[in-house]
């Protein structure tokens, strides 16, 4: 019984990390209508930047995040202005190919600079810290912290999207960029701000990923795959759905791992496939108002 409880708890907590991976993609994919297949590689790139900051200044990854967030926002703004605003988005294939090109450049650039050795961010004692609320039940403090961060981030983003003027603009642009432009919405400014929001999630996600798991220059593809699965199951643009979907994939992976550790990743993909076949629109469609 405690084994089952442990699997469920680990699955739910892992879902927090997956939700953070997917949050930025959900905004780009569901709101801005850009299929950013470089999302996983950008996560890995930012994790390497965090590694350099940590190593250079001998500081904790959490402290490095303070420097990483403005850097990521600046990078996101530059990428939006320098790249996405210059490509013809009427054909969705064009920005997708541009993103693919960037993914390849990021992978090879990181390979050149850092080699293939897996890396990890060292968060210190917190990584080993655990509590046992009931006999036989073990909970990682770091994993709980990641889930709490995911919930707080989603709550903030949800409030921005559903309680602010900017959020109304973003959702209008998501419905129809052409109509939003027609009635006077500043599309360029809306996209820039939204992309900066995305990069905020990437900075947080990269640090948490770097602490929780190993990463190397080619880790982006597996992160992108999980993020896509979470976004699709969660329903495009539905942020609480993203968290729920993250937990679904996390649970599936932990159940798979409890049978045989080599089944962990496969179990997550299988659950995704089954849900996709039954409900291609996702488990939690976009909400109104």
């Amino acid at each position, binding site marked *: 019984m405690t084994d089952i409880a442990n699997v469920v708890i680990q699955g739910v907590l892992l879902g927090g990390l997956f939700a953070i991976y997917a949050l930025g993609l959900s905004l780009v994919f569901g709101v801005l209508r850009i299929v950013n297949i470089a999302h996983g590689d950008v996560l890995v790139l930012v994790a390497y930047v965090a590694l350099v900051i940590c190593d250079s200044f001998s500081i904790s990854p959490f402290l490095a995040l303070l420097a990483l967030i403005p850097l990521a926002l600046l990078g996101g703004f530059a990428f939006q202005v320098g790249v996405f605003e210059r490509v013809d988005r009427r054909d969705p294939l064009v920005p997708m190919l541009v993103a693919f090109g960037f993914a390849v450049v990021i992978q090879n650039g990181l390979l050149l600079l850092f080699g293939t050795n897996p890396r990890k961010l060292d968060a210190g004692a917190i990584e080993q810290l655990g509590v046992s609320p009931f006999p036989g039940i073990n909970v990682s403090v770091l994993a709980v912290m990641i889930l709490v961060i995911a919930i707080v981030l989603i709550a903030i983003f949800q409030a921005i999207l559903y309680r602010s*003027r*900017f959020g*109304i*603009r973003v*959702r*209008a642009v*998501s*419905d*129809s960029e052409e*109509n*939003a*432009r*027609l*009635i*006077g*919405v*500043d599309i360029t400014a809306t996209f820039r701000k939204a992309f900066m929001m995305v990069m905020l999630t990437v900075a947080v996600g990269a640090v948490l990923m770097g602490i929780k798991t190993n990463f190397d220059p080619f880790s982006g593809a597996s992160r992108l795959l999980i993020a896509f699965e979470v976004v699709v199951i969660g329903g495009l643009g539905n942020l609480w759905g993203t968290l729920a979907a993250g937990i679904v994939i996390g649970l599936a992976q932990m159940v798979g791992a409890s049978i045989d550790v080599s089944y962990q990743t496969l179990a997550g993909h299988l659950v995704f496939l089954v849900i996709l076949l039954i409900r291609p629109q996702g488990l939690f469609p*976009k909400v*109104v*108002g």
Partner: protein
Amino acid sequence: MTTDASRPLLEVSDLHLRYGGLRALDGVSLTVNRRETVAVLGANGAGKSSLIKAIYGVEPFSAGQILFDGVAVSGRSPNQMARAGIGLVPEGRKIFPSLSVEENIRLGAAIGGHDSADVDRVFEIFPELKERRHVQGTLVSGGQQQMIAIGRALMARPRLLLCDEISLGLAPTVVDRLYDVIGDLVAEGMAVLIVEQETNRALKSSERYYCLLEGRVTAQGRSAEADQDEITRAYFGGDHD
């Protein structure tokens, strides 16, 4: 900059607009004075909507000039036009399905940057929208969607309202109501440029009119003095009995 109250609020001079080889506007000139309703009449394809889109910065025009309150606004984006004080009630209403009735209205404030207290004013004008404020914007009736589109434009506190085919597909009683509201807005100091296919309704609700045919002004004058035969000729071209 001081405002010359005697000068028209909107001055459009010799406007030309082409879609590829098609000439949509061919030297259109018109004015709209303060506290005035001006109607632009014409059949489908006459260039009415193109004129609205050119004025509002949606369609770039090849030649001509647009002055708003004496300032050249040619080449500005719709967002800049909204901030300058021009509101648009677009053809087809353009209600956003992800937004509730209230959010669709508030989108106007998100463009013009005005206080959310203006929502209450919109709800005073259209009380039925207040009752349905949390309903998905596209799930209310066509008339109520048109009210949302007008309310959304009012949120940015425009001095000039551009209305593109607001009567299209609506019951006559609803159209009466919408034109009554427009009359009230003009009485409060707003100027309105309406584009309509329904000639009688537009003439009844405006001070002056322009008739377009194939992108050109074929007739203009005071609405109260409009001659039906002349309008019909200007509307369709050639001889019509």
